[in-house]
């Protein structure tokens, strides 16, 4: 295996990519572009959730309660419904995401301190907005009860806070407002950096499909050298994106980057080696580009999106699934990116994940070389 030989394959591959400008631009920028789009879409601020109200009580107290709930920007009064049928229809049509039903004894129950007879109904098909409305209404209800019963409580010699005696203080570290995009965007880097792996699978199958692989094999290049030469340009593509993406995330989306950039760059290179090796395995196995693409979607892209703990926490997955997750380079890398972006941890914390990435990379490369020899030996 000589460096000159590997370089020759690399140059050939670079020529392939450079020959066509639109391919070049797409290969170079698709990862960053996709991340940019997703970052925009994740800039979600739930506000103005439309709420329908069905008020059976029609009292001064119930109207004050509704006014208090819909005062801010969080929840908007969409309509007063006449009956349950109207509530049903509004929820069915998706015109409201939550509905508030106030029972007829509202004012009386409140004054006699029996409770707060209200019910919130939310649309369970997309529960984010509904859950948000529930939290908001529960908070408003607390304040409302405190104010409404202040006089009574005082005469009974109890302070107003007594209705919520537990003083729970919640502090969130690393991401004070708990904004999902602050951790999902770093996590998604592992997904978009998987795109070059699909390109690797394609280019290897490309040689088979066009019958040019035999020509390459007739040259004095060793098989491992051929494989390495093929992935080097894509490691370059990946590293370019490794620089672009944090730059965008910090400058444009104001996501904090608290760790060391050099460490991020270095570990990203190991991740690229691992994930591109996965692409090699696929590319070596398949004879046509279409089949290589279909298989890469099944084993690299979809699992890299859903099973790496970016959206759904690893801890909550079934035991057996966690094993599959751990065999994906993206799982370890997503932990690394989040760790470097948010808590800003260093190698003392991240080394097990780095080791796992290296192990996976070597294993996949060996697998690719083995299949390669077997198929063409």
């Amino acid at each position: 295996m000589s460096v000159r030989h590997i370089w020759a394959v690399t140059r050939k591959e670079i020529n392939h990519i450079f020959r066509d400008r639109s391919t070049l631009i797409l290969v170079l920028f698709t990862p960053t572009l996709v991340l940019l789009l997703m970052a925009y879409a994740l800039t979600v601020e739930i506000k103005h959730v439309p709420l329908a109200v069905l008020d059976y009580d029609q009292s001064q107290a119930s109207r004050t309660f509704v006014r208090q709930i819909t005062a801010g920007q969080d929840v908007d009064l969409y309509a007063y419904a006449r009956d349950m049928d109207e509530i049903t229809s509004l929820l069915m049509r998706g015109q409201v995401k939550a509905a508030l039903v106030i029972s007829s004894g509202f004012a009386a129950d409140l004054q006699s301190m029996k409770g707060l007879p209200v019910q919130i109904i939310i649309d369970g098909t997309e529960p984010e907005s509904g859950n948000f409305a529930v939290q908001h209404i529960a908070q408003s209800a607390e304040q409302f009860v405190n104010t409404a019963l202040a006089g009574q409580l005082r005469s009974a010699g109890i302070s107003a806070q007594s209705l919520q005696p537990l003083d729970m203080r919640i502090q969130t570290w690393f991401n004070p407002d708990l904004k999902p995009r602050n951790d999902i965007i770093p996590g998604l880097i592992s997904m978009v950096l998987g795109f070059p792996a699909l390109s690797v699978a394609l280019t290897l199958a490309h040689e088979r499909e066009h019958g040019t692989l035999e020509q390459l094999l007739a040259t004095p290049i060793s098989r491992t050298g051929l494989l390495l030469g093929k992935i080097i340009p894509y490691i370059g593509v990946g590293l370019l994106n490794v620089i672009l993406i944090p730059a965008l995330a910090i400058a444009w989306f104001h996501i904090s980057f608290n760790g060391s950039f050099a460490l991020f760059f270095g570990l990203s290179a190991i991740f690229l080696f691992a994930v591109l090796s996965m692409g090699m395995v696929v590319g070596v196995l398949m004879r046509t580009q279409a089949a290589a693409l279909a298989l890469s979607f099944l084993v690299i892209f979809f699992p890299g999106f859903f099973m790496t703990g970016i959206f759904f926490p690893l801890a909550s997955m079934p035991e057996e699934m966690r094993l599959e997750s751990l065999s994906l380079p993206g799982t370890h890398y997503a932990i690394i990116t989040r760790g470097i972006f948010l808590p800003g941890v260093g190698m003392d914390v991240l080394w097990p994940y780095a080791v796992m990435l290296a192990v996976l990379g070597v294993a996949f490369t060996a697998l690719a070389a083995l299949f390669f020899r077997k198929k063409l030996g």
Partner: protein
Amino acid sequence: MFRRIWSLVVKEFIHLSNDWWLPAFMLIGGASELLLVGWGTSRPVQNLPLMVLDQNRSAASRQLIVSLENTGTFRTAQQVNDMASITAAMDRGQVTAAVVIPPDFSRQMDSASGQPGLFVILNGAESTPALAAQRALQGLASTIDERIVLRRLNLDSEQFSGFNPSLRVWFNENLSEALYTTPAELGLMLEFTVLLFAALAFSRERELGTLEQLLVMPFSSLEIMIGKAIPVVIVGFTDFLLMLAMIHFAFSVPVRGSLPLLLVLAFGYLLVELAKGMVISVISRTQHQAFLLVMLVGMTDFMFTGYAAPVEGMPPALQFFANFVPAHHWLEILRGILLKGTGLDVLWPHVLALMGLGLVIGIFSWRFVRRALD
């Protein structure tokens, strides 16, 4: 004309059978992937690592720890003796939440007007579990509040119903994750299958230089396009049926509305995505290019299906853009028919939008193909 189209379809199927991996992946791949992904992700957020620093060590604090574990969100609490352990575990991402119970917790609980304190630290480096932990903790706090209030004000628990609103979730009574994640996952896999397959239709022939051969034969551009489209539609629709059966039987996603209506609309949606794929196919010179364009288009569409973030919370410009994304309307239709049991009377705006988009993209696609082929 039909005979000629038929011969084109036969040619496509010969291609497919030469490389049987491809149809196998396209057909079974989607459904089995959905089974795996659905199995992994369709459960409530649970089993989250929890740390407790109990400085009180009383019956009351132990009871609190048990209640924390009983929320179902956390696994058995790991007890530690100092803040340093919590800080270290937080840095390492080993815990989602840490609860500190102060030394005077039980005294404050027992006194008539005391305010028992609790200090909670959430690990914001992963927001999904942190938000679930926050919800569980707030729910527990209001339960404890109510218990204390009952005792202190000497209220009758039979009479007192609490000052917290009761909650009902419609269309998904148990708030099962599978009901809102698996339809979106199905949507993504279906879209990518159809887009990819359609996008390779012409780019493959062009890359391999066989497009010229096809053009010298006595086929019109419309015939070539239909001949290319039929296998994609057959594979795409079969894939959809398999995946629908999968989420229905494996994840108990109900079909509350009309199944025939769903099938008709699914077919229509496939045609729209097919037309999009055809446009990609003729503007790409190589399969590599076609693939990269599919990634861009497919991922953009996916953001508007409500999987990662609700569309109604997005910036206004993006909410407006969502109207032009077929997948957005399709997911509204899919969720509506499956979960809400709605029919055309409610869904017509989305159906109309889908038809309009289909018409525009279809005409655009046909003109594109014709220009590229003539």
